């Protein structure tokens, strides 16, 4: 059966692939907003059948605001402040990146099918998407030299981990307060990274991490 969940998952997968090909920083940020929104809506969709607590609804509202509005907003702010060529400047070409992305989906599907999790089918798909997003984020961090795209890679990886958490802990053992703390950490992390980026761009006139190679043994 193709339902809302599957469509959401497909869009998340596409957003990962698309972010690997996009050459403009601006479209990467927009993609992160979309992905953040979809990822934070996932638990709602998965739990539609079960009863939602009031605390849960508040948490998802906050999460949606932070992941889809605050964080992309901060990134946009950073982008306008820093001296930056707005091209992504990949170390690995766009076409090869997409090939890697497709390969990731295959590997993720293989892993998800071979983990013997005794739960129904939809979880396997969530797991596949989660692993792909995680891997895609890591790949983005490694294959792009601009510091801002590395932050975006980190965020994507974080989305993947969050999805994985959603798939694995559907029985909601986790307490809302705890999830809120994780979210706060993420927000502050992006803020701190933005401040460092701003300083790097002032000191180096660019935010290319290839310039950051003075410290070594």
């Amino acid at each position, binding site marked *: 059966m193709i339902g809302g969940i599957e469509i959401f998952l497909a869009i998340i997968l596409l957003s990962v692939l698309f972010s690997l090909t996009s050459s403009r920083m601006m479209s990467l940020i927009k993609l992160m907003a979309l992905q953040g929104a979809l990822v934070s809506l996932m638990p709602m969709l998965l739990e539609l059948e079960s009863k939602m607590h009031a605390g849960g609804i508040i948490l998802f509202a906050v999460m949606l605001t932070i992941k889809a509005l605050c964080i992309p907003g901060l990134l946009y702010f950073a982008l306008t402040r820093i001296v930056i060529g707005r091209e992504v400047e990949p170390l690995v070409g766009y076409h090869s990146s997409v090939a890697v992305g497709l390969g990731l989906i295959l590997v993720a599907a293989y892993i998800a099918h071979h983990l013997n999790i005794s739960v129904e089918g939809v979880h396997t798909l969530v797991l596949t998407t989660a692993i792909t997003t995680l891997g895609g984020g890591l790949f983005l961090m490694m294959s792009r030299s601009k510091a801002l795209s590395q932050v975006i890679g980190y965020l994507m990886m974080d989305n993947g981990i969050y999805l994985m958490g959603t798939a*694995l802990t559907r029985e909601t053992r986790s307490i809302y307060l705890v999830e809120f703390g994780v979210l706060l950490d993420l927000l502050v992390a992006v803020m*701190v990274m933005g401040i460092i980026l701003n300083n790097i761009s002032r000191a*180096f006139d660019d935010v290319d991490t290839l310039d950051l190679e003075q410290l070594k043994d």
Partner: protein
Amino acid sequence: MLEYIFLLPVCVGLVTLILPPIFGRIALVATGALHLLLSLKLWLAGGQAYFPEFFGKAHPGMLVLLLSSFVFAWTAPYAVSYMRQRPTKYEAVFSGCMLLFLGTMSMAALAEHPVVFWIAIEATTLASAPLIFIHRSKQALEATWKYVLICSVGIALALLGLFFITFSMEGTGPDIPLSFSSLHKVAPLLNPLWLKTGFIFVLIGFGTKMGLAPMHTWLPDAHSEAPSPASALLSGALLNCAFLGIYQVHTLMVLAGLGAFSSNLLIGFGLFSLLVAGVFILNQPDYKRMLAYSSIENMGIIAIGTGIGGLGLFGAMLHLIHHSLLKSSLFLSAGTIMRTYGSKLISQCANMPRVLPKTFCCYFAACLGIAGLPPFGLFVSEVLILFAAFQRGLPVVGLLFVILLILVIAGFAQGALRMALGQESEVQGALRPREKVLQFLPPLALLLSSLVLCVWIPEPLRQVINDSIVLLGGVIHG
């Protein structure tokens, strides 16, 4: 209510961020002293958590808490003298973040819920990042960027590991709260496959933060570029907090009957860290980087001791305590040396005994201690770990341990001796600055407390060490 121990520095820190710098100096010293008193009170008089599902008094956590608090209490006055001599526009940020750093570390030490622990550890990264690039130099910015990015990714992987561990609870019944102590109780029922996967991710994740090779790449940069008071805290307190996470999950693995798996991984990573540290300490031209690599070495030793178990666990705990005290003392002395000579290069710091006699005594004694020579505590702990290796039938590990230690000591001795006996350079010959009390007293106090602990371990401390290792089958008397 024991939450006040981390709420106090966090609240004072947040206020300090917006108040004028002079307030920050007072707040640093006062909060440091008060925090130490509160920690001692918690040790001796006890206390209950207001949120028992999130926070508690786990024994290894108490040890880490007191150590962090003690190191901070002595670092704070040093930081005040540091700020006086190297004024910066961002002094309020520096004081505020130091306090936030202390608060988040205390929170990690007291955390009972795995995800709360994770939140605290990630928060330590974020609170300490502004400390590293407080002087806004290019090198410091590079170090901070690596620190924040590598550690954040590492810690994110640890969160994934914690999710796997949570998932291993499926089938143990729905009414078990997620906390370290209740996980320890149901350990044999947990799904071993997910537990193993979880441990690998946690080890890699928190291992990044702890500085285990090959995930250590951020550590030498961050520890050498940070201002000395921050380096002392990073090395002397933060690494222990990250180790705490690995230790808790390792305990879980042992109780679940998977101790062999996690022990082997710990020993493997530990030996590799020793190797990497040994290779990079040899001919290291920069003394702060030398100290940073020595931190990697010592974290490796702690991992090995934990992995070996038995008497080795006692050795690891002793090593943790003495490493914190000696290494923070060394970094504080290194700060004074750097301000006097204006360089981080060993070759530039000639004739130290005449230029900085008091600091030199402190620095050189702590160097001997950190290299593991008697009468210092690290000698005792290394011998204990070595005994344990042979006692538990791991002669190859014992042998490798000794060979790698010799490599590290050789490198360290080379650096320390060049600083002590180096030829008089013409630039520094005439210079003889006055050493202020605030500059040499904190490192001296940390050094002396390590010396005192070599000959006399107070009863409560012995009790806590015993309680934290007994769950893993560790013993104090072999």
